[in-house]
């Protein structure tokens, strides 16, 4: 009762106020409230613009790329020229075209593996946290297992021994190794939410458990889920690049990781083709940077205190 009129929620844990605050922010504009909060943060704005640029390149890749990335009819191991802005590979493919088309792979892997591991994390975390008891014990054991098993060696092993090859294998390997952290966070969040009176009230209103989780609890965790997704997507993009660089990627798809792998195999350093080596690495780090910058804004979304500067 002693809170001053414009009550500012305590920093951290509470994600419930976010939705309400977001609706309040959007008053007077047509944009959704969460977007206004993100856009106002300068770092986040830069991140959004960078990511938008990557997405545009990926979507219009066939129009932007001057050649087919698999077309090896060009002279091999060229440096940057007017025809081939970033030179050609040891097989005689256009590096710039590969770079443009490779953006697709990274974004698709990031999106798909991000969604997949967020979903696994959500289901496991929510079930463990809400049901409790022995179900929680078993699921928590699995989560802890997922946390302590070193992800990269496991990814390498899974990718190396899997009977099939392809992009989906990479996506599944990354999701299977990367869901545990998100599950842990969602479990602890739901444990604090499930004791709220409105959950008891929903039971008194005759709602079933599944509906209570989906309609009463999940809306109060939106910001947490988004943060989890961003983290998972980031990890997935890095994971794909790592696997591909190690030669465990899908040899038929063009990605920044396979480009790095081939640049290294093709002796780009020896032939002085710096562009072949640097371009995919730079693109990768810029994409990861854009995600990190967006995360600054998402922090402000889940913690109203950060919005006041």
């Amino acid at each position, binding site marked *: *009762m*002693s809170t001053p*009129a414009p009550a500012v929620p305590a920093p951290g844990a509470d994600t419930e106020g976010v*939705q*309400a605050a977001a609706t309040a922010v959007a008053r007077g504009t047509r944009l959704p409230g969460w977007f206004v909060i993100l856009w106002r943060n300068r770092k986040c704005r830069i991140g959004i613009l960078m990511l938008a640029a990557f997405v545009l390149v990926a979507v219009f890749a066939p129009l932007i790329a001057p050649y087919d990335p698999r077309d090896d009819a060009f002279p091999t191991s060229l440096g940057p020229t007017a025809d081939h802005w970033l030179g050609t590979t040891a097989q005689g493919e256009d590096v710039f075209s590969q770079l443009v088309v490779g953006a697709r792979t990274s974004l698709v892997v990031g999106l798909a593996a991000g969604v997949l591991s967020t979903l696994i994390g959500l289901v496991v975390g929510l079930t463990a946290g809400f049901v409790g008891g022995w179900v929680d014990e078993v699921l928590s054991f699995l989560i802890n297992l997922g946390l302590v098993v070193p992800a990269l060696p496991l990814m390498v092993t899974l990718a190396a021994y899997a009977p099939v090859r392809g992009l989906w294998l990479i996506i599944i390997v990354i999701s299977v190794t990367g869901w545990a952290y998100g599950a842990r966070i969602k479990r602890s969040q739901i444990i604090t939410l499930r004791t709220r009176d409105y959950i008891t*009230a929903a039971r*008194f209103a*005759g709602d079933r458990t599944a509906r209570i989780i989906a309609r009463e609890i999940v809306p109060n965790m939106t910001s947490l889920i988004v943060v989890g997704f961003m983290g998972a997507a980031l990890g997935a993009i890095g994971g794909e690049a790592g696997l591909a660089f190690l030669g465990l990627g899908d040899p038929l798809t063009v990605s920044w990781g396979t480009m790095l792998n081939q640049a290294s195999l093709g002796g780009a350093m020896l032939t002085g083709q710096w562009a072949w080596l640097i371009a995919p690495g730079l693109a990768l780090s810029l994409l990861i940077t854009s995600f990190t910058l967006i995360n600054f804004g998402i922090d402000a979304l889940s913690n109203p205190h950060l919005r*006041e*500067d």
Partner: protein
Amino acid sequence: MALLEVDHLSVTYTPRDQPANRAVHDVSFHISEGEFVGLLGESGCGKSTLGNAVLRLLSPPARITGGRVTFDGVDLTTADEEKLRELRWVDLSTVFQSSMNSLNPVIRVHAQFADTFAAHKVPGDVTERATELLELVALDRRVLRAYPHELSGGMKQRVALALALALRPKLVLLDEPTTGLDVVVQRGILTRLAELRRELGFAVLFISHDLGTVLEMADRVMVMYGGEIVEDRRAADMLREPRHPYSRGLLGSYADPRLPDVRVSYIPGRPPDLSRPHTGCLFAARCPHVEDACRTTHPDLLPDRHGLVRCLVAQSDRLPVVTLGSADAATTLGSHFPATGTLDRPADAAEAAPVLTVTGVSKRYTTRRGLRTSSVEAVRDVSFALRPGVVTALVGQSGSGKSTLARIVTAVERPTSGEVRFTGDDGTDVRVDRLRGAALRDYRRHVQMVFQDPFSALNPTRTVAYALSRPLANFAGLRGAAARERAAQLLESVGLAPAGQFLDKLPHQLSGGQRQRVVTARALAPDPRVLIADEPISMLDVSIRAEILELLGDLVRDRRLAMLYITHDLLSARLLADEVLVLNQGVLVERGPTREVIGAARDEYTRLLLDSIPNPFAKAAAG
């Protein structure tokens, strides 16, 4: 010169996403050495903001936008951090409402004292000084070796008070120091505080929404409304004749529950929105004595009968005279709520067949830590019955097992022994303590709950219409337009009219009282036979409590509901209930018709509860 001088102080909140909000507007007052001043107001009136401004503890988006605070000759508004650091705690210390959480959980109490002494270079033996300080607040020296989590809420608050007094400050700012504590514990702390002030002679600024406590403790009381001080007067004068209609309204919500005829009043309406410009008196919209001039002229805080008042009507001496604490006060004050008690109850109610019978119920909690198991008996051999049209109050302090009983009755938990039976309208008989699955869901159609905290009982992301539609869909099979229409009817039945205004609102757009009405409407949606209300008014502002009590009382009698009203507040039990059960440590110690139990308590524990209620009128009568 006074110890603390606040001069035309204004504080404005300028959040990015909301319009600026002038939480404190042009406030001036002073506190002399050794004076005990109460600052009274309801949530959102700016009293805590004012307290924080005095301590220079405001953080963005709040900013001091005008005026000065002078403490002991030092201008606090311009002093640098180093100067402030020297003053804080040495001369000017504080105990917050959540001070019990301000103790560091990983170090022992002894170390917290040691830190305080070390930070301000106090020589001497820490243990000895700390023991002395703990004795001041009536705590044993063994507390020194305890970690904060090993202490109860009341003990932690006493430690915080001892820490605040550690350096013998000249002024202690107490911001709701006992809110959230049990009545009996609160009584203990306040008594000790009054004694300490007499011994040590420090000045106090006591911020609280609880008028009973403030009037009982303070020499002088300032009432705050809408960011302004509306009345400033000696406590005794305030009790005898408050001059601002708002102070009168607040005082009207108190009464001695032991009197044969108890009436309380409430103030209808809501506090002003401080982010909008206002002309005229801020209280005009809720004032029973409002005149035309009040709507156009903003009153000043002017001298009036040994005090200050900000009211045009009072300044021109046109306020009706009232004697507070008496039956006619409530009627003069406008909206009022007479104690129903046993007055106008249908004669047959007591003989009606019970809907819910609790027989010999006990509940034992077993905790297993390692190999050892320990058990606590929360409820022991409790029996009672709920009848249609009758309110049964279950009173007791926290930890007495009230909430455990509520959980057993609503089948959230099962009793260790004993039985709970529910008799439906059609004569069906249900053993509540054995329900599960579909039968349990079916039982909840008949037994619904009104929660204590209206701020956590509604999902912040769901509209009012959604909250009401769920029980309607699950129990009545109503969906879509039919459910919406029924939801609108429910809202109107709890006094939220026109319902169209409220259906699509989110909880944060409603006031506390409106939320509690929505919670009540949701409980009524399945048309239940039994309503369990667990402290439904304890989180609400004093001025609107009676309003919610009146609503609950009307619902019970109009719909012939059986109600279990759980509370620690005997005044509200007196107002609402027909019969009272007093629970002490899981055992029923006294029961009977409300008037008999409260008017002539036989059990010692009941009397302790009654004596713990802050009662300014008792002081007035005695002195």
